[in-house]
């Protein structure tokens, strides 16, 4: 198996790449903007699992480059993980539209751009799977991160449409909905200890969902129920909450 990991420098993506290398003996394309960091990770995975890991430059926000990027992959991947994301700064985005646009671009527009290219290829070959890392933040808008939430929410809807389109061709699309994970993205945040997963735990959940051909996976599993509660709060009440 050849697996393309987009945003491979993210902690969850790297842990997931390790799972696929270990259990599926997957050869890896590790793609991200920081190739130096990727080189170290590629070497680590090669020594640990005896697979081939190739570091590649990829900029999710530079949509013009995506066709050439995908064209350059030989052989073509059997699976793609879209793990790049950008939390951004809610307060700054409220003051400066460029900040807001960047959040949409990095989390949604860039993902659509590359995944449409991937989807066309997988659809033609009738083979492949796509794992998209969205977020539970996309399930209800909150004042503390609604730009990020809106982008992730759009991404979730995009993935569900893609799944609908590709299902007849036997191409699997998995939507991953992580809650809190202790990563570099959340390092400065004060997260509730008991609800927070390690990247390795999230990777294990995602890999299991892949093995079991799940469509949607929450990680950790209890977020499914937390979000059920959060979604069911009536809007007149919800709008008064400080979330």
């Amino acid at each position, binding site marked *: 198996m050849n697996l393309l990991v987009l945003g491979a420098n993210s*902690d969850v993506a790297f842990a997931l790449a390790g799972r696929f290398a270990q259990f599926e003996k997957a050869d890896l394309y590790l793609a991200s903007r920081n190739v130096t*960091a990727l080189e*170290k*990770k590629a*070497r*680590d995975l090669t*020594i*640990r699992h005896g697979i081939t890991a190739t570091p590649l430059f990829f900029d999710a926000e530079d949509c013009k480059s995506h066709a050439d990027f995908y064209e350059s992959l030989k052989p073509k991947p059997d699976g793609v993980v879209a793990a790049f994301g950008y939390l951004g700064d809610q307060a700054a985005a409220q003051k400066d539209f460029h900040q807001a646009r960047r959040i949409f671009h990095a989390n949604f527009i860039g993902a659509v751009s590359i995944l449409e290219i991937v989807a066309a290829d997988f659809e033609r070959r009738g083979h492949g799977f796509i794992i998209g890392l969205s977020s539970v933040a996309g399930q209800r808008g909150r004042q503390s991160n609604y730009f990020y939430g809106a982008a992730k929410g759009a991404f979730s809807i995009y993935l569900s449409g893609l799944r609908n389109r590709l299902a007849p061709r036997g191409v699997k699309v998995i939507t991953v909905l992580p809650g809190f994970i202790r990563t*570099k993205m959340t*390092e400065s945040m*004060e*997260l509730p*200890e008991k609800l927070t997963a390690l990247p390795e735990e999230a990777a294990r959940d995602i890999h299991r969902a892949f093995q079991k051909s799940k469509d949607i996976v929450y990680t950790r599993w209890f977020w499914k129920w937390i979000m059920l509660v959060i979604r069911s709060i009536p809007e007149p009440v919800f709008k008064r909450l400080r979330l």
Partner: protein
Amino acid sequence: MKLSGWGRYPLINAKAVSFESEAELPAVLSVAGEWIVHAKGRSYGDSALNQQVITTRRYNKIIAFDPQQGVVECESGVSLAELIDVFLPRGWFLMVTPGTKLISVGGAIAADVHGKNHHSAGCFSSCVLSFQLMSADGRIVHCSPTENRELFLATCGGMGLTGIILTVRLKLQPVKSAYIRETILRCRNLEEVCGAFEQHRAFTYSVAWIDCLAQGSQMGRSILMLGENAETGPRQLPPVRRLSVPVNFPRGCLNRYTVRLFNRIYYGSHPAFVENRLVPLEPFFYPLDRIDNWNRMYGASGFTQYQLVLPKAASFAGLTKILDRIGKAGFGSFLAVLKLFGPENDNYLSFPMEGYTLALDFKIERPLFAFLDELDRIVLDHGGRLYLTKDVRMPAQVFREGYPRLHLFAAVRDKWDKQRKFNSLQSKRLGV
């Protein structure tokens, strides 16, 4: 975030910063205040705690492996468990391993950990070929037994107080299988177990579980476990069913009666003699690793481990006094371990010295520390010392008396970290 050592006492609020590349560190160190590295959090007390900690959680990549020499180069956040997972199937195992594999390579160096083969292989530092250390001013220094030797001697066993251990080159030992040939001897008292340790020195691995509450003619009764790397058997470890302690044990579960009962059953459950049975390496070296969060057994208030070593000549007399005091006071410890160490090394703050070491777990409760102060007196009177990696309460005076090369350590810190950028709650308590 909330942070504690393995003993879950003390529990503090700390700011934790992670890093992936050493290039990120100088900016971290330029922030005012003290720092200490906190890796897997398996040291028992306060040696990896402070208001600001640097975690090596994301600094955990393997850099190179030489399959001819068995030399691995990795970042200090890689755990011993990961090294075993990767290299044991290829016929390589750690030269020195402590009783848990869930620690980082950096932590193993900082505590200069020892294992069941200390009498033949020494401490962890003996398999460390070299490492890079980031000093307080952000410089990267290459250290080995021959280059920057004094910094090497201070860092191995130096509890992270000399700087941040970055990449490490380690030597592994070749093994033919993932199994151990184990021999078990039941010893009726302290004299018998000490005699057995001496008699069986030729075994590569040895350790004894000791019933610390048995008194009179049974005082010091033990189960001595001896082992050799097996010549036969697969290199793959059998799968392990993991167990877990999901919640804190309620107060009162562990008391002198339950512990006495446990010890009696545990002692009795071993036959008097087992020779050369083949066991997987995991339960032999890491019996507790298969139980997640076993530290919750001691309840919400946490626990501490009191590990002492006495010079050989004074060991028997000293251990007798200590076991007598424990039996009388009734502070129960069901994870009590006895081992005969080999000669001490040159590192300034390494714990082992030639003689017997005794490790006892105690639940934290009010009268405990006063009682341990009494034991301190016996340890010092017999020329012994306590292990920093386990300690959470030792008075500074006890530390100074036990570690006569402390002035050499302080001199290295004066040279490399005059401002004491690197400090832990423990180092401040002990006035290191």
